[in-house]
């Protein structure tokens, strides 16, 4: 971890002074810079621009012009969506809401000067900065794998070309071949995601390669919706899926991308596809800003402000905040709380109590959807879970179909909420 020492000393170590005073930029209009155009950043940019009616200057920095959502990318692998249906652009945020969309990488943050430096050389001043960079991978977390090997052993945990590559590799598997997944340790993006992916890979293989096998090496004792997934795998894909948990060495793995082998606790498997999902950490820019503690950026629950710098808000997967899972829905929910806090600080608009919620839908097979969700509130310590629900095993087909259809509706809703 590289702490930006100069900036860090400038503000002091600081869970202190989270009270915010209105402040104006040099041109009179307060400036908000948002780094990262996913579920957290796009939502925050849209809500601040929309609700401030032009009183706040909003710039969104996002390297890609076409953004592919991680949520529903497994459904592309399963054949339920076209890749193009999960791709989005930022045109409406610019044209309808007046957000300045800059397609570039943020490569440095000077917390004293309150500026963001872009790879192209531009320097953007801010009154409030919102970082929503998603995840990066912890180096060496899976021995033998590095980002340089991602074309041989894809992670497909940032959607787009990686997802396309993974699907192509699965489609090219020899008859009766082996797809292996190295599942990540906690905490990671989208707790049910790896297991929905297994379901979707199984769905695809059942159609094109029914004697193929699926192997999961998993460092975790248990995982979200486990009973629901295991019931579904048994029901739809009997005999196809094997999971090796930590009690049988599932946490002691290494890979060799050149040889296409996976070593689980000393026993070496030849694999046709190896989907390595490494351990995760906050997107690099958080480290560059010096606002991380361990792998994540701690935040103040009621406002999503960094605990190290009151002028920076952090959203979504990059944060450590308490009980919310790292999900697109969570990031979208947190973004609205942060947008309200930022507007309150910069324009004196009304600030209401923070409310957070999350639901994660997963598809197990055609028309067999399940969900888990919860509501959360801020305590002084953390965002705490206060209520929740989960689909039950043995539910009838009509309910599972309705749950899937609901997830499709949610996708349409959240993407409209993010991109306008």
């Amino acid at each position, binding site marked *: 971890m590289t702490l930006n020492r100069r900036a860090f000393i400038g503000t002091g170590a600081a869970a202190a002074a989270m009270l915010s005073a209105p402040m104006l930029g040099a041109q009179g209009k307060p400036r908000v810079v948002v780094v990262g155009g996913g579920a957290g950043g796009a939502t925050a940019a849209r*809500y601040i621009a929309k*609700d401030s009616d032009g009183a706040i200057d909003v710039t969104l920095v996002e390297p890609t012009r076409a953004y592919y959502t991680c949520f529903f990318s497994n459904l592309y692998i399963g054949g339920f969506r076209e890749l193009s249906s999960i791709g989005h652009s930022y045109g409406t945020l610019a044209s309808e809401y007046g957000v300045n969309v800059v397609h570039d990488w943020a490569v440095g943050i000077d917390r004293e000067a309150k500026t963001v430096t872009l790879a192209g050389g531009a320097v953007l001043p801010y009154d409030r900065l919102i970082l929503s960079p998603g995840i990066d991978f912890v180096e060496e977390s899976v021995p033998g794998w590095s980002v340089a090997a991602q074309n041989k052993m894809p992670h497909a945990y940032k959607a787009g070309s990686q997802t396309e590559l993974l699907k192509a590799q699965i489609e090219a598997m020899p008859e009766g071949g082996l797809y292996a997944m190295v599942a990540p340790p*906690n*905490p990671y993006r989208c*707790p049910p995601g790896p297991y929905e992916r297994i379901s979707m890979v199984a769905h695809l293989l059942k159609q094109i390669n029914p004697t193929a096998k699926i192997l999961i090496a998993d460092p975790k004792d*248990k*995982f*979200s*919706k486990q009973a629901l997934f295991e019931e579904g795998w048994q029901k739809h894909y009997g005999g196809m899926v094997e999971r090796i948990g930590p009690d049988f060495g599932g946490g002691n793995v290494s890979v060799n991308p050149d040889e296409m082998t996976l070593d689980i606790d000393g026993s070496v498997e030849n694999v046709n596809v190896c989907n390595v999902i490494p351990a995760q950490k906050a997107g690099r820019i958080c480290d560059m800003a010096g606002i991380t503690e361990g792998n994540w950026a701690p935040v103040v629950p*009621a406002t999503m402000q960094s605990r190290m710098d009151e002028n920076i808000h952090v959203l979504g997967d990059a944060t450590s905040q*308490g*009980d*919310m*899972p*790292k999900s697109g*829905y969570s990031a*979208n*929910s947190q973004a*609205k709380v942060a947008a*309200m806090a930022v507007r309150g600080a910069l324009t004196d608009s*009304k600030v*209401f*109590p*923070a*409310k957070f*919620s*999350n*639901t*994660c839908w997963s598809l197990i097979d055609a028309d067999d959807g399940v*969900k*888990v*969700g*919860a*509501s959360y*509130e*801020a*305590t*002084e*310590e*953390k965002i*705490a*879970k*206060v*209520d*929740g*629900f*989960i689909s039950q095993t043995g539910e009838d087909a009509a309910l599972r179909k309705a749950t899937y*259809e*609901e*997830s*499709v*509706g*949610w996708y*349409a*809703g*959240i993407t*409209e*909420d993010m991109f306008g």
Partner: protein
Amino acid sequence: MYGNVVRSVVVSVALAAPALADEIGDAERGKEIFELCGGCHEVGNGAENGIGPHLNGIFGRNAGSVAEGFPYSDGLKRAGADGLVWHLDKLDAYLTHPKLLVSDTRMNFDGLEEPQDRADVLAYLRIYSDDPGNIPEADPTAIPAEVQLPEDILALVGDAEYGAYLSSECKTCHQADGNDDGIPSITNWPQEDFVMAMHAYKRKIRPHPVMQMMAGRLSDEEIAALAAYFRDIE
């Protein structure tokens, strides 16, 4: 559960103070109180069964199933088979006096009389059960800020500005332009229909779990505010 009727004007009070959820209790104090239990029970890294079962992972588990290989009393096993799950309220009752819940339990303990003592012990135990950040379905770690229910629900005049803020949560699923793909449109409803529907979810009369959860933590003013906002949305 819903008889908590407060005859007062609530809206300004509710908005003035930030509605923070309550921690279950003070885990550090709970750790000290747990010394009372420590003769029989272990919890934490490497905890093992002793005179009583270890208590790792107790939140959200069926009674009589927490610790593998522990010889539970027939009463506790029966309670588990009958569907007793160790959520916060059940554990609180059990700590008040074990025989409240299980008549022939072997847990020979007179109970913790002070609610705060029980809350603190439970806050301490909660640390060693699943973390909702990783397993979203894991038991809650806090108690929601209380929602107050005054009378004259339908007569409330909603604050559309507050409704606009609250509606951001609805719009994660319900599209603002009124399109309906798998999730119903909620725009331009008559205010009264909206209010009735939301109260039916809140009281779990209508069945949908996501809506029950969402409505369950909205006060009457908040429902009125949403109704006012969605009635006039363009």
